[in-house]
Each structure stands twice: as C-alpha cells, then as structure tokens.
C-alpha cells in the first residue's frame, strides 16, 4: 500500500516531484503544526508562571505543580475524566464500527436513511439541550449511578464522532480483497477479522481518537447529568470562574500531555518489538 508513493514521475515536473506530490505541501503542514502547537507551548510555559493569574507572566516558579500534586479534588477530577473518556471511547467506537459496517456494506435497505439520521442525532442537538433533556429523562426513570450516568451520556454523544470517520473510510472501500478472501474459503468471520478489520483500522483509530478528545472536553452535558462524586476536569475548570482560573490548571494539563506522550511512546516501542519478533 505504501511502496507506490516513492515511485518518481519521470515525465513531468521540473524537479521530478513524484506523482501526487505537490510543491509547498510540507511547508503547509509545518505551518499547520505550528498553528496547532503554538498555544500548547504557551500553555506549558505559563504553567511555570509564579503569578496567580493565568494570562499574565509573573516570573518562573513550580508552585502550581506542587499545588496540583496536593490537590486531591483536582486529581479525582482528572481520574473521573480519564475513566469516562476511556470507557465511552471503547463502547462508542465498537457500536459505531458495527453500525458503520452495516450502513456501508448492507446495501440499500429500507430504513437506511433513518438509521443514518438516528446515529448522527446526538451531533445535531445543541449540548445544553441534550444536557437538560437527558437529565430530565434520567431523573424520570430514577437512574442515579453517579459516574455511570456520565459514562452513558458520553457513549451516546461520542457515537457519531466515532462513526463519521469509520463510515467515510468504508464508503467505496475496495471489496475485492474481501471477495478474494471468501473465494479462498475463509469463513465470514475470518474474512472480517483478517481482511476487513485491518483495512478499516485507520478509520477506527481516527474515530476512537475523536471520541476520546470529544469526551475529554465535554463540559455542559457532564455538568448537568453527573450525580454526586462525578466532577470531571472540564467541570472543575469551568466552575472556577468566581475564584478565577490559576496556572494550576496549566500544570495539570501539562502533566496530562506528558502522560499521554509517555503512554503512546511506550505503546510504540512495545508494538515495534512485537512486530519484529513476529516477523521471523
């Protein structure tokens, strides 16, 4: 799938750029990542702000890190956020994957458009409305699971975010490989497991990442449907208004970033090891 990229075009292009490559594409991408990371760098720098204010520099200090380490409320909020985002991502991505497979591969059937509409419904409603409506529903049926309420709500609104990239990938995906698999007497499960899934993986990864990011950032819905003991990090941050935000939040965000980078690096090192060991 990737070797064809390097094939250079010999016929055209002054500098013999390979087909499909464009001048300025990499500078554009660099500009893109500068745009993406400039605020993150600012945020990290300001986490060392000795000042109490988030936005005005008052000298270097690590007080906010020490404070964050001693703040059990904020730690609990971080854990709540991570638990909710992880569980919601796993479930939403699984549900969205199955749904997308049916909708993209099930041919044309009655109720397809309606199903599509239903799956994207959580996307189309302003958050505050979802928040109030879901809370009314939860209290009407007497559901009070604390963090469980939040997790269910998050699974619901994460489904379309996971669904869209997966479906986009499936649409028009070449089915010849799968047919080949079946011609070779692979069972349907085997075809799915060893042919469809690997082909679908980039879509699933993209979908899961979106779901995770959306869940980590949600504030209004969590604020409303959360029961006692379910304050998440965004809820904590948004509720600081009357006291004013402090660089403590930057410190926590920086640590979360570092943790995420550490996890993924570890994952890569591990997966590379297993890859090389299975190759032989």
């Amino acid at each position, binding site marked *: 799938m990737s070797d*064809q990229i390097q094939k250079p075009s010999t016929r055209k292009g002054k500098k013999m750029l390979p*087909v499909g490559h464009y001048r300025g594409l990499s500078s554009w991408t660099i500009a893109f990542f500068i745009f993406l990371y400039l605020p993150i760098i600012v*945020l990290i720098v300001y986490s060392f702000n000795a000042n109490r204010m988030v936005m005005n520099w008052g000298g270097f200090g690590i007080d906010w890190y020490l404070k964050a380490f001693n703040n059990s409320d904020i730690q609990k909020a971080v854990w709540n956020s991570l638990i909710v985002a992880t569980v919601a991502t796993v479930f939403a991505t699984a549900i969205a994957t199955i749904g997308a497979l049916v909708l993209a591969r099930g041919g044309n059937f009655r109720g397809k*458009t309606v199903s599509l509409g239903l799956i994207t419904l959580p996307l189309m*409603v302003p958050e505050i*409305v979802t928040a109030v409506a879901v809370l009314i529903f939860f209290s009407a049926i007497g559901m009070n699971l604390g963090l469980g309420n939040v997790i269910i709500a998050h699974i619901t609104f994460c489904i379309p975010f996971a669904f869209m990239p997966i479906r986009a990938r499936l649409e028009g995906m*070449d089915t010849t490989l799968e047919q080949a698999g079946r011609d070779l007497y692979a*069972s349907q499960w085997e075809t799915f497991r060893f042919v469809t899934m690997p082909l679908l993986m980039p879509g699933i990864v993209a979908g899961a990442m979106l779901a995770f990011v959306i869940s980590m950032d949600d504030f209004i819905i969590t604020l409303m449907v959360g029961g006692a003991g379910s304050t998440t990090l965004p809820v904590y941050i948004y509720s600081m208004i009357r006291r004013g935000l402090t660089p403590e939040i930057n410190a926590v965000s920086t640590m979360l970033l570092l943790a995420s980078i550490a996890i993924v690096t570890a994952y890569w090192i591990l997966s590379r090891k297993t890859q090389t060991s299975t190759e032989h």
Partner: protein
Amino acid sequence: MSDWLPKSAAGRRWLGLAPSYFVIGIFMLIPMVIMGVFSFLEPNPYGGVKPIGSLAAYIKIAFEYDLEDKLVFNPGYLNIIFRSFQLSFGATLLCLIFGFPVAYYITLQPENRRNFYIYLVTIPFWTNLLIRTFAWIIILGRGGVIEAPLLATGIIDDSLRMMYSDGAIAIGLTYSYLPLMVLPIYASLEKLDFRLLDAASDLYANRFEIMTKVVIPLSKPGIIAGCILVFIPCLGAFIAPNLLGGGKKLMLGSLVQFQFASARNWPFGGALSMLLLSVVIITLIFYARAAKNRAAMEGSA
C-alpha cells in the same frame, strides 16, 4: 465462529444496528422527544414547564409583543441564527482549506509514520478547550506573544487590537475543530490507491487535474464527514465567540444556553433547538437525495 449470527442478511443488518438503536434511541431520542413536547408547553417562571399547551415559544422566534401588546415582526433572533450559520460556514471553510492538504500530506507518508502524525494532530486536544482558548488570548492579546516583539523592535507603537474581533473568533473556532476535519479526511484518503494517480498521469492529466479529478472526488466521503463534524458543533459554539470575540454579539449557542440559565425559558430553548434540528435534518435529506440521484445517473451512464 459465526454460527450464532442470524442467517438472513436483514437479520444481520438489524443485529448490527441494534446497539446504536438501543443507546441512541433510549438516551437521545426519548430525551429529545421530551424536549420537543416541552417546546409546545408554557414555561414555568423559575425553570421547567407548566403542563399547558402553547405555541408561544415558536411565535417568539420571529415575533414579539410591542408596548401596546401588538404582535410585530422581530428579526432579532433570526439575525442571531443567521449570523451563527455564517460564522459556522466560514469556520468550516477555513478548517477545510487548512486541514485538507495536511490530511493528504499524512497519507503520502510511509505507513508506519502515519499514525504518528495522526497522533500529533490529536495531542493538543488533550488539554481543555478553555485553557487552549486562554492560550490564544495570550498570543493575540495586547502586548502578547505576537505583539511583544513587534513593540520591542518599534515596528508598531500601539496595540494591533487583534483580540475581541471576528478574526479572533475565526481563529478560535478553526483551532477548536481542526481535528474533526483532518481525521475523517485522512481516514478516507488513506485508502487512496496511488496507482490511480499514476494512471491519470499516464493519461496526460496535469497535477491540478489529478488533484481535482482524482484525489478530491475519491476523498469526498471524508470531506463531507469532516464538514458535518465541524459545521454543526460550530453552530452551538460559545467559548470562542465569548472569550475571543468578547461576547459582544449573541450566537445561537449562547442564546440557547441563556434560555436554560438566566432567562429560564425552557420551551423557547427547546423550540430553538427543534428549529436548528429541522434545518440540519432537511439539509442532510436534500444532500442524501442529491447524492442518490447522482449515483443513479452515473450508474446508468
């Protein structure tokens, strides 16, 4: 392994859709029906509703009672809705222009490096939106990251006043929703077979034609998914308009928020979101129809 699956295609179909139907049907559709019913009731003065039927919430969207209690046309709310659509449209366009080449660039990378790039796109979004938005205030603000060196070197001698402007809102919205554009486009581009490009090139297509006639049509599902994912949340956005734009003009998101908070008019909030929902659904149906017709035409040609 797959023995337990239903034998018929239809049975399997519904089994696959069952989890989505179950979760969204119960935890989203039912609550929305409740909200829909609420929008036809009278507001309880302190939040909630009274069980008395009323169309007042819908009338309020376009009309108001003047001082003599006469019903007159009031474009105020419609202006807010229109403005929000405009802004969302602009932000979606910016995300597309900025995001598409990057998604494409990532697919050009060797396979093992692609996930790394995708990960790079998502990392910034691990931090809270409010905090990221604050970082933009530091960057764009008076004497901030951009202005400070210009002021120090004497290139400018007064603030550029970049903050609290429509431009600042546009930057904020684009920044907030970029990954929602890049990831779906990447997901659909990633399967692009580059032999097609070679084939096109062999047929004397120039670079521009390869892009517009091969790459873009093939990535269309991703572009559409990305546009939907950016456009709709933008309609309800309120952090960027408030913090970067200075909140000087109400947007749809803040307006709906306002009805459930200060104004305590739940039916009106419900009615506004029903309106929004219908607009979005009608647009999507039209789009689906058009896509179907086109597919049918291409099929018969």
